[in-house]
């Protein structure tokens, strides 16, 4: 029986290992020099129409020939082997698939890959590496902003974009003064993160992590 401390260490080791595996997968995909045959197994159909699309993922140009039905999420996971972006509900309700598209966070499950010719996409693998974490990744580790970790890549991508949205002056449902600068309080962060569900319930630690990166308190 593991002590709570051991479990804690294993959880963190597991998270780092998950990021590392995803990075290795991306390298292996490039080394294989194959045009990725994208699309989930459920979509395989010899007669299904395909379309070519080119976009930039985490700074690298990618050319894909895809079953038109392939969502951006499936293109990232199955086509490019970037497994950090997670499939939760696959219907835009949970936020596990959140990536940053041309500077905006979106649900990658509710958009087709072929709709993003020329776009710039950032996934959790593009934010930081195990050796050099993005400040938001480091803050999630420090504040224990996760338990099982499945929603975490989406939470972190969303959180990075939330701070950019507040910086840009985009109001939210709880912003009292529509014409002023939105405040950086807990109510704002909670409202803006409501599209990312964490069924482990790490919300209060997630808010602390985001607040720290926002420079609210050390």
């Amino acid at each position, binding site marked *: 029986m593991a002590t709570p401390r051991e479990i804690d260490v294993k959880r963190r080791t597991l998270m780092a290992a998950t990021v590392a595996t995803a990075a290795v997968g991306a390298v292996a995909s490039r080394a294989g020099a194959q045009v990725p045959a994208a699309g989930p197994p459920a*979509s395989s*159909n010899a*007669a*299904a*129409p395909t*379309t070519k699309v080119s976009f930039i993922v985490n700074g690298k140009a990618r050319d894909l020939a895809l*079953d*038109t*039905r392939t*969502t951006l999420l499936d293109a990232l996971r199955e086509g490019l082997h970037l497994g950090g972006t997670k499939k939760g509900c*696959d*219907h*835009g309700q949970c*936020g596990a698939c*959140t990536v940053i*598209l041309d500077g*905006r*966070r*979106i*649900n990658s499950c*509710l*958009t*087709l890959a*072929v*709709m993003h*010719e020329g776009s710039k996409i950032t996934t959790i693998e593009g934010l930081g590496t195990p050796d050099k974490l993005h400040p938001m990744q480091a803050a999630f580790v420090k504040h224990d902003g996760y338990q099982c970790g499945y929603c975490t890549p989406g939470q972190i991508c*969303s959180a990075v*974009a*939330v701070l950019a*949205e507040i910086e*840009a*002056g*985009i*109001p*939210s*449902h709880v*912003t009292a003064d*529509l*014409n002023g600068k939105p405040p950086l309080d807990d109510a704002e962060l*909670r*409202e*803006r*993160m*409501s*599209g*990312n569900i964490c069924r482990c319930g790490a919300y209060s630690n997630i808010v602390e992590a985001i607040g720290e990166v926002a420079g609210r308190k050390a």
Partner: protein
Amino acid sequence: MKPFTYERAASPAEAARAAADRPDARFIAGGTNLLDLMKLQIETPDHLIDVNGLGLDRIEETPDGGLRIGALVRNTDLAADARVRRDHAVLSRALLAGASGQLRNRATTAGNLLQRTRCPYFYDTNMACNKRRPGSGCSALGGYSRQLAVVGGSEACIATHPSDMAVAMRVLDATVETVKPTVKPEGARRTIPIADFHRLPGDTPEIETVLEPGELITAVTLPKPAGGTHHYLKVRDRASYAFALVSVAAIVQPDGSGRVALGGVAPKPWRREDAEAEMSRGAKPVMAKLLAGAKPTEENKFKLPLAERALAAVLAEAKG
């Protein structure tokens, strides 16, 4: 999803013509509702016409002091536009009360107007639904109807329109601009008052708007600012990221007169100008007219007093 072919349209008129030529084609913009429905095979288009590249993503001032909002303006950008926040705040408030940050970043102005109901029987392909499969019956009547319509429904359908944005557009007297496919390369333009844009279900609940085959929304126009104080109160089962049980969009003038439209209670944004004559007398007489003829179910009759109390709260807020 069923297999489909895909094209990127080059102009609005070309997109309209491409859609008119193929009855099972759909336009796709944000895709946040259409792809959800395609995954469930509630929508099964054989061809998608991507309209994202049509340049309909600008907000321009009109000669009469209003705003012309391109069909592809994303919900986030519309809510954050300085002119909308200052002069049409009810629209910003309604947009920000809807969906999540991720969805608002993709969802478009036209797509929001065209989104489908979230009636649980529309979504469950095992159940009868006249909107999804005309003539199959309505499982919602006598079923789980807590979220559904109390007014404007029919024996065939009691689905609600799920949009927050559309309720604000209704109270702002917006106009929908479209292009229709014709033999001429530039197509034919028409404008539709928002009040006439959505249809009541009657015995054809599958027909939700007055748009004709291939007709493409190009913009939504707001008249000059209405003045007054702007309010959008949304009552829902959780504090964020949920559809309305009842929502109230209102513009209240200093003399107590004003406008009010309701969301979450009807198959379309619900407004009756004759009810607004009662605004200065309080919520009760307004709701008596606005919800006249209501036919709630046992499960959703709570919406009648809830709507009245929501408006009373808005009117109290307006008095400051």
